[in-house]
């Protein structure tokens, strides 16, 4: 049972990683002028869409314990609606948190919101898929030592790693390297801020780093996410851990601290 679960989990994660990597390259065949840095908004959209679809499909396919009682259509629809509302609320919540972290309130709202959406796809969506719109279950999973199955552990780790990755992604904000990707961004951003530029000559530069920061935050988040996904799958495969999965996150933490 456990082995089968781990195998399924592993495939889900592999699919996720592959899909994220593919969204970086595939769209450039269909869309002209597509690049991660220049048209980061489209890229963010595409990526979050892909990941969302893959998540939903895969998790529904491989769901560990499909509810035994066949519920009515009405019930299903209400669950779906509820999930959508929850997802939207989580987007708004992330948006609010990002603004509280210092993102401008009005200008660049779209970027901020897309970032919130992508963050939600990585955190809220798997929870919705696996646990359903059930706040009690969420609370249980996200308390320390609250995870009961390997799926809960997976949720814990992916969610935490996404959030931590996004958090660490703010790292380049203060940096002022005149890198090509930064100046390239300035070009991309200048038409957005064109109106301001007429009023104040340096208005374009003001917002220069902001979209870049988003891209890097997102990049960083993705990288951390992938690393953690890989780590997690590796850890799950590790036979030593399978034999004694009493409190995996705690032991994992202990392990890292000890080493």
């Amino acid at each position, binding site marked *: 049972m456990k082995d089968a679960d781990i195998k399924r989990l592993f495939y889900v994660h592999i699919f996720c990683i592959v899909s994220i990597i593919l969204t970086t390259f595939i769209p450039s065949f269909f869309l002209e002028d597509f690049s991660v840095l220049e048209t980061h908004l489209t890229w963010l959209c595409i990526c979050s869409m892909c990941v969302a679809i893959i998540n939903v499909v895969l998790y529904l396919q491989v769901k560990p314990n499909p509810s035994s009682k066949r519920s009515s259509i009405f019930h299903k629809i209400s669950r779906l609606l509820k999930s959508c509302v929850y997802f939207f609320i989580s987007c708004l919540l992330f948006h609010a948190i990002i603004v*509280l972290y210092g993102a401008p309130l009005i200008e660049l709202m779209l970027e901020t919101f897309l970032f919130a959406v992508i963050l939600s796809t990585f955190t809220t969506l798997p929870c919705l898929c696996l646990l359903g719109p059930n706040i009690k279950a969420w609370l249980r999973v996200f308390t320390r*030592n609250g995870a009961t199955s390997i799926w809960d552990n997976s949720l814990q780790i992916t969610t935490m790693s996404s959030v931590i990755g996004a958090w660490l992604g*703010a790292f380049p*904000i203060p940096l002022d390297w005149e890198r090509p990707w930064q100046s390239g961004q300035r070009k991309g951003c200048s038409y957005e801020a064109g109106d301001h530029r007429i009023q104040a000559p340096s208005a374009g530069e003001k917002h220069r780093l902001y979209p870049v920061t988003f891209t890097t935050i997102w990049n960083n988040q993705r990288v951390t996410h992938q690393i953690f996904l890989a780590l997690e799958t590796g850890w799950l495969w590790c036979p030593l851990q399978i034999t004694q999965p009493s409190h995996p996150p*705690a032991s994992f933490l202990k392990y890292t601290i000890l080493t």
Partner: protein
Amino acid sequence: MEAAFLLLSHPRGEGRTPQLLPLGSWDWGPRPTDQRRASEQALMTGSIPGFIDVVMNFNSPVLLEDNLIGQAKAAGKRVIFYGDDTWIKLFPKHFVEYDGTTSFFVPDFKEVDDNVTRHLDTVLKREDWDILILHYLGLDHIGHLTGPHSSLIGPKLKEMDYILKKIHISLLSKEKEASLPHLLVLCGDHGMSEAGGHGASSVEEVSTPLLLISSAFHRKMGNLQPPKHVQQTDLAATLAVGLGLPIPKNSVGSILYPVVEKRTMREQLRFLHLNSVQLSRLLQENVPMYEKDPGFQQFKVSEKLHGNWIKLYLEGNNSEVLLNLGKKVLKQYLDALKTLSMSLSKQVAQYDMYSMMVGAIIVLEITILLLLSTPKALCQNAAFEIPLSSSSFSLLFYLMVLILSAVHVIICTSAERTCFLCSISWLMAVGVMMLISALLCVIVALLTKTFENVRPSAQNLAASSSGWSELDLLILFGTLGHVLSLGASSFIEEEHQTWYFLINTLCLALGHEVFRNHFLGKDLDHNLAVEQNIKKNAKNVLQYKNDYVDVPETSKIYKASSSMELLPKVYEKWLQLASPWFILICCRLLRTLNQTGVQWAHRLDFGHWLTSSDHKIELSVLTCLSLIMIFVLVQRRCSSVSKVAMALGLLGVFCYRAAIGNVLLPWQRDRKSISKGIIEARFVYVFVLGILFTGIKDLLKSQIIFADVSIKSLGLWDIYNGLVLLAALLLRPHNLPVLVFSLLIQAVMTKFIWKPLKHDAAQVTIMHYWFGQAFFYFQGNSNNIATLDISAGFVGLESFIEVPALFLTVFATYIGPILWAIHLLSFLSSENNRSSAISHASFCYALICSIPVSAYIILVTSLRYHLFIWSVFSPKLLYEGVHLFITATICVFFIVMDQTNLIKP
């Protein structure tokens, strides 16, 4: 951007047409050139001011270095000066006539200039001077007050234009009878950043225009050339050559070639030769291997060529050959000058490595000592012993002292450059050596002790490390991350971002904790019981954790017994849940008030909007509201006497702000009489001192008479309130909301987070420290000298008096950290159920402050050849040093408070 007009009788000119030589802007290079002394020094000596010159600016001592004014006086030139009195302090006996204006009272921008202009008419008619120096400060003050986009700047520039025209016309009319043309030099000594300050190294701050106007220059027909960049240090050399004076000895500048371009070839070569001889002498003095220097070699070659040229010239050869050779020599000289100048500028920074290493070692040793004693100091009885006596008699100690003394003697006898440690008396030096070796011995002793203890309990340590809460992890990694970030110049420039980020995360973590506390009480109970079991096994490690483990029970007890009867429990719960979010919103609002740092400093912020002259009414309303809020927030903990004093004091603050013209009183809308507000400020000082005095009286009472603890905490709160009142007086007009939010956040945190969640003293201390740091930046400070508000040092003072001005400036700069630290003390002392909380807090406070400082000192020592060492790292070091000094004072205060606690029972 101060305008300094230097009027010089140019002694060797023949041209007649009045000319403008736009030399364009000049570069300061990445130097901290904030303060005036440094800039004048650079102008007149041609040398690059060191960072320490900026610090010394507050009481400008006499400039002893060889300089242009001194040379002029020696040559019998008569120099007249009007303007900033820093010049008079620098050159006390050099001017035949002067009128100084104090430059430190920044809010005034009319009088400073009128003081200069009123002499102009008479002095321009007279014939009895050779050099006239006018230093206009108005523009600088406007910049500091309202920034470069102020509406005041246009009229001020027009005024300057008019003055320039007046001087020029009068000089032209004078020239008709005189034989020599005049030179009019118009220059600014520094630029202005987007915020109006200066002192960093952005392009706007380091480049200013330089105009040389004289009839000696020939007009170039056609379109004007784009202005060129020259170094500020070049001016001294150019003026010296122009006036026929020796070039100042330490000048690293090279002559501005366009100035002498129209002279005969022989003269041009002579000037360049003079300049390069001076530079090469300077190089010989400073560089041991000067012969290998490319500039010196170029100079030798050009000198030889110059000799050939002279030979040809004296032979009367007037052909093309002579001209071509002359041009070649000229080019060679200019190249040599450039290279010499460059290599000299690089040479200026000399480091006293030996003293630096010794200082760094002491700092490092003390930090390690603190770190090693952490587990002991944070256990229940909060006592740790330093095995000083045993280790100071050990063999290792004597050996170390001997070795270090030997090293000291060897270094001091072989050192070529001056060294601080060698220049102090040998007794002191031996004391330093003994300190180092004693510390080392103590560390070794402690290390062996810990290793003996740790071996058996290593297993337990591992077990308990998973018992760290998220908050502990966040605090640990936040501190580590901050320390690591100090290694990069951008992170230092934007350090406020780090702190904002950290406190936001802290608030979210607290929100999570509150949430968990409320909704998962039962689960938590279970988990904590498990943890407690683990902890019981881990006997002597991290015992201090235990006093927070019993969260749910104690919080229930608290709820039942505390003062919250007024509110129904449901409300209280929701208020608790909302409080972290409320704090987050407060922080977000404060962020928009002052845009600080470097990269985004030019973004318009709310503070600029408020201080602009169009929004005076809004500012007045905001000030009024803030003062009322301060009173409401503070009066809860006041004794009745100090409540009245507080109210009157805050009223006085408003009157003071009205008097200096920041805000409008409702009944005097039109009258515009701006005074320095000395009476009002002193009125407030009386109340500040009164409240502080009441507080100290209470403290003494609690110490001498065996009164209960509440009197002591009342005294502490009174001291805190007195400091709040002083802060309200000293803060910049638009910054009062910072104080309000600080008080508000403190109140909210106390009521809804620290008390119900029962954080232990260490956690509370570190949170206080983080918030204190964040508020340092919320105030609009940065790690840049330019944001330092020196006008705070002149509140209520007629003139510059060093000690109070310094004290007030330091207090005004560090209001955030100081207020939070004192709040910590008052908070902990009013929580009387915690034993040894204050000693925990003082230890944690010392530790958390000393870790970044010691890491930073080591980083700076290793990065001393970094490009930004002067512009970024040194100011930060200054800030850190002052902060460390304040921390030390606060820790001493903590310990004194703790001692009274011990004496009493």
